[in-house]
């Protein structure tokens, strides 16, 4: 037994974030920690990392009582966290990052030879000895940075490594690579805790699971002995029988026509497709295949270099988001924190920002109308918030995403460009967004859904196109695709 938690509780004021968590992580094994957003996973991680002290309960590390009071104590004891947002110093080199905070030194001067040895050894532990040591890490891909981060954990002698949603920004190949690294670390006797929303990933990488719900550990065991429905039942405490609702919708005439669209760096490279009224059009592909770039250049956030976009028979000018908005286009950014939302502003501002004129008269915003519109959206999307005047940044990820989506509803977009709308959000929020997308399709809107989550594309879309290296390699009705053929096409092996 590497790490054992017993009856951990933690409250913040009146909010009970953890209400009794038991956890056991064994050396040489991967434990999948599963739960909706807001189930208490991040609080639990903060307790283990020493950022919060638990109100009740005990922790043991290798049989010794373990009660870190600050993150430093926890990392000294051999516990490493790999967060969703990577914590590398982007301007420093790989080597410098690997020893950051633990630089080998003689009399205050860096021992460069020793540093190189440590860095090499760390990269070898994670089977990535080929990564360049002298390049600033901002030159590396996101996947490579993550490997560097894990290698850094190893270099610090980590006995327990906790990975928080490590694959949320990785493509399939990088995910596989990461899994090899995880397996290699487990084989070396490290205990790993793997947090993810993706059940099939958990099954692939972990042996045992632990489900958190409402701050409690509600079930655990061996993953092979439980099916997805059983896990989801544990997670949400109810049956999610209709995660992908089947709402009948009829396809009309083409609403959005993209022709030979091309952008800088061959992303996209002469892509043509049409989306009809009432159609949910999926775009599958690996990260970096150019899907995001298509949405951004259609909407006008990026400048397209060639091609044309026609909306309801009239061409759309490139590079003018304001005009696109007026023509009924709405873009949900893949990055809600950095682009999608005004985190320090309230829900009302975020919902109404793109169409303030609808709640204003003579240039002045009516707060009353702004709040009324927001409250309607809060109800429609089941946003968990105390009021429309709360800062969006204080909501959980799923509820933030509902707000970002709600803005498209407020602006009454008829062509919805959704970029990874369900990335990193909980099942409950996903269900809400799925239903909204299909309801919009029912009313004759065109929905373009970019997603790296294949079950979602197969469950929702009428038509799915697959992107590979900037090109749209295949467009077919949903019933002619399955996960295997989508992946084959995305890898360019069709």
């Amino acid at each position, binding site marked *: 037994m590497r790490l054992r938690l017993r009856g951990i509780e933690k409250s*913040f*004021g*009146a*909010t009970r*974030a953890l209400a009794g968590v038991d956890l056991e992580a064994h050396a040489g094994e991967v434990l999948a920690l599963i739960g909706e957003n*807001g*189930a*208490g996973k*991040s*609080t639990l991680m903060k307790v283990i990392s020493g950022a919060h002290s638990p109100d009740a309960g005990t922790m043991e590390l290798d049989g010794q009582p373990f009660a870190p009071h600050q993150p430093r104590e926890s990392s000294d004891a051999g516990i490493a966290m790999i967060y969703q947002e990577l914590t590398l110093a982007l301007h420093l080199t790989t080597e410098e990052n690997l020893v950051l905070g633990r630089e080998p030194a003689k009399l205050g001067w860096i021992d460069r030879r020793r540093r190189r040895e440590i860095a090499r050894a760390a990269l070898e532990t994670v089977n990535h000895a080929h990564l360049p040591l002298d390049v600033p890490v901002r030159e590396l891909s996101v996947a490579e940075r993550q490997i560097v981060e894990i290698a850094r954990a190893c270099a610090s002698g980590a006995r327990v490594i906790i990975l928080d949603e490590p694959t949320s920004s990785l493509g399939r190949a990088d995910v596989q690579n990461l899994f090899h690294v995880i397996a290699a670390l487990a084989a070396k006797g490290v205990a790993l805790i793997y947090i993810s929303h993706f059940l099939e990933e958990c099954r692939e990488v972990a042996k045992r699971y632990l489900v958190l719900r*409402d*701050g409690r550990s509600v079930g655990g065991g061996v993953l092979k002995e439980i099916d997805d429905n059983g896990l989801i039942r544990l997670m949400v405490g109810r049956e999610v029988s209709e995660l992908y609702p089947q709402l009948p919708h009829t396809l009309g005439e083409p609403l959005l026509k993209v022709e030979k669209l091309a952008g800088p760096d061959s992303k996209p490279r002469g892509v043509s497709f049409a989306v009809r009224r009432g159609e949910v059009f999926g775009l599958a592909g690996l990260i970096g295949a150019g899907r995001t770039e298509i949405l951004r250049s259609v909407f006008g*956030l990026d400048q397209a270099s060639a091609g044309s976009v026609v909306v309801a028979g009239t061409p759309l000018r490139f590079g003018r*988001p*304001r005009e*696109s*908005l*007026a023509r009924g286009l709405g*873009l949900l*950014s893949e990055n809600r924190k*950095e*682009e*999608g*939302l*005004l*985190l*320090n*502003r309230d829900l009302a*501002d975020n919902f109404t*920002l*793109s169409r*303030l*004129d609808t709640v*204003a008269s003579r*240039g*002045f*915003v009516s*707060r009353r109308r702004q709040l009324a519109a927001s409250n309607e959206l809060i109800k429609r999307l089941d946003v*968990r*918030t*105390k*009021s429309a*005047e*709360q*800062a969006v*940044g*204080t*909501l*959980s990820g799923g*509820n933030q995403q509902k707000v970002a989506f709600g*803005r498209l509803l407020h602006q009454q977009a008829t062509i919805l460009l959704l970029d990874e709308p369900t990335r990193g959000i909980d099942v409950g929020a996903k269900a809400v967004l799925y239903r909204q997308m299909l309801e919009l399709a029912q009313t004759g809107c065109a929905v373009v859904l970019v997603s790296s989550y294949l079950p979602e594309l197969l469950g929702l879309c009428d038509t799915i196109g697959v992107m590979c290296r900037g090109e749209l390699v295949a467009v077919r009705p949903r019933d002619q695709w399955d996960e295997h053929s989508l992946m084959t096409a995305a890898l360019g092996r069709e």
Partner: protein
Amino acid sequence: MSTPSLHRLSWLKRYPLLGPLFGLLFVLGLFEIMVYVRHLYSDYPTEPWAHFFPLEPRYNFLTAYTIGLTLTQTVIVATGALGMTVIIVAGGIDLSAGSVVALASVISAAILRSGHSSWLAALAGILSAMLVGAVNGGVISGFRMMPFIVTLGMMGIARGLAKWVGDNQTVNYNFKSTEGVNILMNNPAQLGSWDVPLWVPPSGVIVLLLLTVVMSFVLNRSVFGRHVFALGSNEDTARLCGLRTRLLKVGVYVLGGLFIGLAGVFTLARLQQGDPTVATGLELEIIAAVVIGGASLTGGVGSVWGAVIGALMMTALKSGAVQMGWPSYVQEIIIGLVIVLAVGVDKIRHRGGS
């Protein structure tokens, strides 16, 4: 679950203006007590604290006269702070404000000297500051440059222009203090025409008050104002939502220039001459007032009432220190401490919120 509930937010968080307001009342109360205590002990000059409470006949800080004087002295910084609030809320900064105040006042003075009407002079001063704002905003959004750098450069340029216009000396003009823009900063009692008590503040204070009401409304309620908040909160989101971010930025600096130019006109009305070396370092006082008032230099947060309170607090500190007979270096140290303290308190207040 992990969503903090609103009713757990302290009322300080819900009404962010209360923080600076308490700060101001605290400063005023403190001086009131100190001035009074000094009076009590003024008979015992051998006491060790006698040095800090030197003899002075008056033993009351909060007299109508000192309040009126404090208000008058606040007008220039507070007017500039109205403009700076817009700029800071939009995620920018304007280091050229002090120089532009000088430029505007010198240009106004030059026009007065050539015999034009006082209102034309004021208009010219304000327009010149708005032009500088347009250049600042245009360069910042056109070349995607850092506002800090662009306005730092403009700080030198505007100061140089002011000296050029003034031929490197003060611009004097023949104008009675009871006429034209000059009435803005002069006590109505001194104007002689009306029978009013000495403490009644000059019309500039009223103008400031009206402008604060207007700007508070514009920032919080107008579509433009909400767009300014959005721009400062997250420029990428603003673009995503179809805001004309570049144009908006120029507009922000032009509007800021309007108030900075007006501060220049107030400066002129107070000095009764155009001095190209005036208002050196004023930009920092203005920025400090805005920040004390609760604005965040990262943008998206701020209030004009807060900024005015911040400006009042600094003037109160200054006039209090003068009345206590403290040397000017003590004032400087205290004001420096207050700026750091105000922002520090604000940080603690917001901790745990997100």
